[in-house]
């Protein structure tokens, strides 16, 4: 009764119907998801608007002034005076930082005694070297010269080390202060 072609066509038809149904159903599901997300976006947008308004309300200059007046004792804020505003080029030139200054400032606790000693030794060696440069014949000085040779770089490094130590110390002090 049924020919093969009929069976094939029926199968195709059934599967096409099933496919259509599935696609339609999937689309509906997706559509619902889209609606949901759209609703969410709308709420979020409204919320953003509201928060923006809230933010500008909270950062109103008039409100900030009221608060700073209220907590004057604790904050100690004052109107900036014209004399407190300085351009960069109006700043007095800072004297160049030397390693001795840093060490003198830091005093004993921050810096390793050994290091200080070695640096001064280094310095001494440098002077030795300049002297010895005039008379290179004395062979026993050689090792000292060898140590002293990379001096400019070494000094920079040491200086930067010392600077790092100094900033560390400042940070420490700040933390200490905060603890108190």
């Amino acid at each position, binding site marked *: 009764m049924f020919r093969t072609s009929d069976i094939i066509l029926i199968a195709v038809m059934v599967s096409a119907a099933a496919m259509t149904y599935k696609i339609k159903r999937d689309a509906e599901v997706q559509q619902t998801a889209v609606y949901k997300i759209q609703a969410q976006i709308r*709420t979020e947008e*409204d*919320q953003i*608007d*509201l928060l*923006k*308004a809230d933010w*500008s*309300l909270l*950062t*109103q*200059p*008039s409100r900030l*002034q009221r608060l700073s007046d209220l907590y004057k004792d604790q904050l100690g804020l004052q*109107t*900036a005076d*014209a*004399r407190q*505003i300085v*351009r960069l080029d109006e700043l007095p030139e800072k004297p160049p930082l030397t390693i001795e200054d840093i060490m003198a400032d830091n005093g004993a606790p921050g810096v390793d005694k050994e290091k200080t000693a070695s640096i001064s030794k280094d310095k001494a060696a440098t002077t030795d070297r300049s002297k010895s440069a005039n008379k290179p014949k004395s062979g026993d000085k050689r090792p000292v010269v060898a140590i002293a040779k990379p001096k400019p770089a070494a000094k920079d490094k040491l200086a930067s080390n010392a600077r790092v130590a100094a900033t560390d110390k400042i940070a420490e002090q700040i933390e200490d202060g905060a603890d108190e």
Partner: protein
Amino acid sequence: MIGVLNKLLKRSRRGKDGSIVLDSARKVTGGKTRTRVVMTMAVFLGIYVAITGRLVWFGFQGPTDSGPPPSRVTASRPDIVDRNGEVLATDIKTSSLFAEPRHIVDADEAIEKLATVLPEIDYEQTYKKLKSGAGFVWLQRQLTPKQQSEIMQLGVPGIGFRTEKRRFYPAGETASYIVGLTNIDNQGISGMEKYIDDQGLADLQLSGLAVAKDLKPVKLSIDLRVQHIVRNVVAEAMEKYHAIAAGGVVLNIKTGEVVAMASVPDFDPNNPYNAQDKDRLNRMSAGLYEMGSTFKSFTTAMALDSGKVTMESKFDASRPITIGRQTIRDFHGKGRVLSVPEVFIYSSNIGSAKEADVVGIEGHREFLHRLGVLEKMKTELPEVAKPTEPKVWKKVHSITAAFGHGVSTTPLQTAVGCAALMNGGFLIEPTFLTRSADQAMEVAKRVVSEKTVEGMRYLYTLNAEKGSGKNARVPGYRVGGKTGTAEKVVNGRYSKDVRFNAFVAAFPMDDPQYIVLTIIDEPKPEMPGRGATAGSNAAPMVANIIRRAAPMLGVKPDFGQENAATLVSY
């Protein structure tokens, strides 16, 4: 069934033929069947008629009055932001909670649940509302989205939300006159809100195209921080000097942008119950005043610009001028011959009148019009007053106008006129929208010469150094300016005690960037025995504004030129 019917018909037909009729069989069943059918049909018909009738009746019946009132279509408006993007006006969506008491199952439970989210709810009142049997009641207006979602979670039947769009002004009264107001339909009715509508937003809303997302924020030239300072200083001054009103404006002289403008008394745009009061007027642009001695800036500039007067010219101010019934005297009379700078710093009425006399009546009138002081100002703000002047200028008008009486104009225009005398001689219409210096130069008109500007800068500096403007000085910011103490007309006569004071200042004087103009209406002395002239109230206001606002305006303090004015030889 059809078979039965046919049988019946056949039988009756046969009967008519005159043949034998067996009636009894039909009588036993047929008659009854017929009536049953008819009865059944009647019953069903009756039922259907009743249903149709009821439907028609329902159709004619209006819906019961439950649910919220029809929603107002509130149109979207663009945000208004200041020059730094701080919000001055924005649309926020708020939702309001309503209930339909008829659908409330258990009022007690509903209230108890709502109270967990809205602790401030009034039990008794709400209970009455819910038991009232009305179709619709408001329970709480303007909830936050958080409260709304929490109430939704409660799942109380018979309540609902209605979202409403509302215009919100975070800055409150700080910029109330500039930003303006909207009415209940979200249409601009004053200030920049009205300007935005007039620019085509109203049409857009009518056609339904005003979608919130497509509306770009409108950026004003106002700097909210400076605006706050001006409003704050002005409000404090009004209280301190027991004045009836006060105002201030900060104008960028290179671009014509109004950076800040305040006038008190003002109103809170979020609750504008008093916005229509008589004294709620933007005095800076909509108030007309006789500006007094600040007009001497214009008189002096006019005299210098005419070329007939130089800095060395002398004017005899030893005797009062009598014209008609009026006598012009000096407030700080020196009783001698004065040079032009002296006329300016001693604010000599006689000297100014003589300066005007040199130029002539028509020249004087023309000059004031050229500076735009007597023209109706063209700017975005809708509240702008038209200056008044005598219909026909006679000599007496020219003389009184020389020291700012007899003609009245708005303080903002005076500031704009003074800006032209400071910025190199260009009159630039003020704007409340952002504008660059180049754009400003396209609309600028040259009104006075470079040399006049130089002279005016010198005079302003000198007046702040030695003259009546000492109280306006701020260390570091090189302020120069001119006082103006005008007597107000009371019962048709100029009163000695009722004054209108103004101070117009420019800073920094070595390269003026901003004009600051303050006004104070009917100030009283701060303490008995002190004066109530402009130098003692309007000038300190300027100083306070500049001291606080200059760093925000990007003016760098400089202490090197503090005594420049005395060193400069013109």
